[in-house]
């Protein structure tokens, strides 16, 4: 991989995209076989994998919305990474189709005969029904895609025109975007993950999923930066200072995630109402208890201790390991949200878990990489670019 240091355009691309595409297609093909052998397992694995990559794409959208809204300076040099991540959202809309096809395998509120014998589901039927579920999903994706593409288009326009008044437009777009993002991501988490157990409810659930989502995208961005540095690309542009700031945000969101996770658990534990605690009971029985402990320690305690010092936040090897680890535990977290729906007591890891992950992931990475390398790797039209390059932590 080589980049022209003046225009920040890629002159010689690496094989990341092609390798991603090949792995993705192989993974999806194998997942197709998985569908034929065990469709229930396939749809649950697929939902985890789909949501894993969707949360990264949404994290990219949130990062860009936040950046444009506050007109952050330090993050200008990594903005293009976040922007390219969010442009994968149209692709993720395509990947949502199998979830709709598997709606009867995944969500038992979608069966009319189940609802007929279930008083609670009858009361919820106005919201939890197949038609409205799909309409909502279309609305969420429409909102995300419109904002993602609008912000991306304006940003590219600024590359060409160097017109700094576009910054104001970006801010005007991202302010309502932020509000809509909060609502849509919350309800998307309710619809696709929480309604797997339709009797159970938690108002903080959307924020919990969002916090994991932002953590995942930060890890993803750090990995992209580290990959660039590994290839000796833009080492003077995206420096250790930017990695330090990304690591600070990661550290903060490790705590935020734990705060949300604990807040959700705490109230239910205290109130001790069976209809609420049953969700945690399923996740504290048999093998699931081990997975819960992995999440508590792996998603909070270990990254918290590792990232607490300044030296760790500025160490590339530490950041590499912790980013890969955080992406892994983010997957475990989603697995823990979805799979108890299928296996009540024992954890059955399946090969389909892996193939769906690398299947969607490979295509995701290919699409992201193609978008990212087709434009200047930093927003060259942004008047704050030099300030961002020169940025140092006090």
């Amino acid at each position, binding site marked *: 991989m080589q980049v022209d240091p003046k225009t920040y355009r890629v002159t010689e691309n690496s094989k990341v995209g092609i390798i991603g595409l090949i792995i993705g297609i192989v993974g999806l093909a194998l997942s197709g076989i998985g569908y034929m052998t065990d469709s229930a397992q396939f749809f649950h694995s697929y939902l985890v994998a789909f949501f894993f990559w969707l949360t990264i794409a949404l994290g990219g959208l949130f990062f860009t919305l936040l950046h444009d809204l506050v007109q952050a300076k330090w993050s200008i040099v990594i903005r293009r990474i976040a922007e390219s991540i969010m442009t994968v959202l149209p692709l993720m809309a395509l990947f949502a189709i199998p979830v709709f096809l598997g709606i009867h395998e995944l969500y038992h509120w979608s069966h009319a005969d189940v609802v007929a014998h279930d008083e609670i589901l009858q009361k919820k039927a106005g919201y939890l029904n197949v038609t409205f579920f799909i309409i909502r999903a279309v609305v969420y994706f429409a909102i995300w895609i419109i904002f993602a593409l609008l912000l991306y288009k304006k940003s590219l326009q600024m590359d060409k025109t160097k017109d700094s008044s576009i910054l104001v437009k970006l801010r005007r777009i991202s302010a309502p975007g932020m509000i809509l993002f909060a609502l849509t991501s919350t309800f998307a988490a309710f619809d696709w993950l929480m309604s797997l157990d339709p009797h159970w409810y938690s108002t903080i659930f959307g924020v919990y999923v969002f916090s994991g989502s932002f953590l995942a995208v930060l890890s993803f961005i750090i990995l992209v930066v580290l990959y660039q540095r590994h290839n000796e690309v833009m080492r003077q542009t995206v420096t250790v200072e930017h990695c330090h700031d990304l690591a600070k945000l990661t550290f903060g969101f490790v705590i935020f995630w734990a705060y949300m996770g604990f807040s959700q658990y*705490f109230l239910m*534990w205290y109130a*001790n109402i069976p209809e609420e605690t049953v969700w945690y009971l399923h996740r504290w029985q048999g093998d699931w208890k081990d997975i819960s402990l992995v999440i508590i320690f792996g998603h909070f305690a270990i990254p918290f201790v590792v990232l*607490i010092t*300044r030296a760790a936040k500025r160490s590339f090897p530490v950041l590499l390991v912790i980013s890969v680890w955080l992406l892994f535990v983010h997957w475990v977290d989603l697995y823990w949200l979805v799979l108890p729906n299928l296996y009540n007591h024992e954890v059955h890891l399946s090969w389909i878990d892996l193939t769906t992950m690398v299947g969607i992931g490979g295509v995701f990475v290919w699409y992201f990489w193609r978008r990212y390398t087709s434009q200047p790797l930093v927003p060259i039209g942004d008047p704050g670019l030099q300030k961002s390059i020169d940025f*140092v932590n006090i």
Partner: protein
Amino acid sequence: MPDNSRNIYGVLAEFDGPASLLKAARQMREAGFTKYDCHSPFAIHGMDKAMGLKRSPLGYFIGTVGLTALVGMTYFIYWTSAVDYPLVISGKPYFSYQAFVPVIFAITILFSAITATLGMFILNRLPQLFHPLFNSPQFKKVTDSGFFVSVEASDPKFNKVETVSFLQTIGATEVELIGDEQ
């Protein structure tokens, strides 16, 4: 050059702006001065590096106290609710650590914050009601428009004549000797 002193506290040199102060700070360090300080109306980026200041040890104090508070409070709450005066509350075990997390968390934060505040005062040797630099009427400008370098006489490199001329060569617009009495 005014010399209003019997015992000399040090030398105060004025510079004309943040950029020249930054440059002067670097030259002072390179010249080997150790007991000097820079004074400006606002924080100047890069000053720590120019002066070669080490990172404050405050974080380690806060970390130690915070961890002690965490462990201490966990033990304390265990002792009160499970050992000394065990009570069954809403059918939960004596040591229901979940209920104690917010308290332990808050105490950890509280002790850390107090340590940070007090530690900042102690490390900065505050409160300090008088400082010999206040002897200079010029120094009043430091709160709005003055940029100063002060060198203490206790610096091993300090020499009444040479230090003054050195400060003048690195761009000081005005240099004065400061006495250490009120």
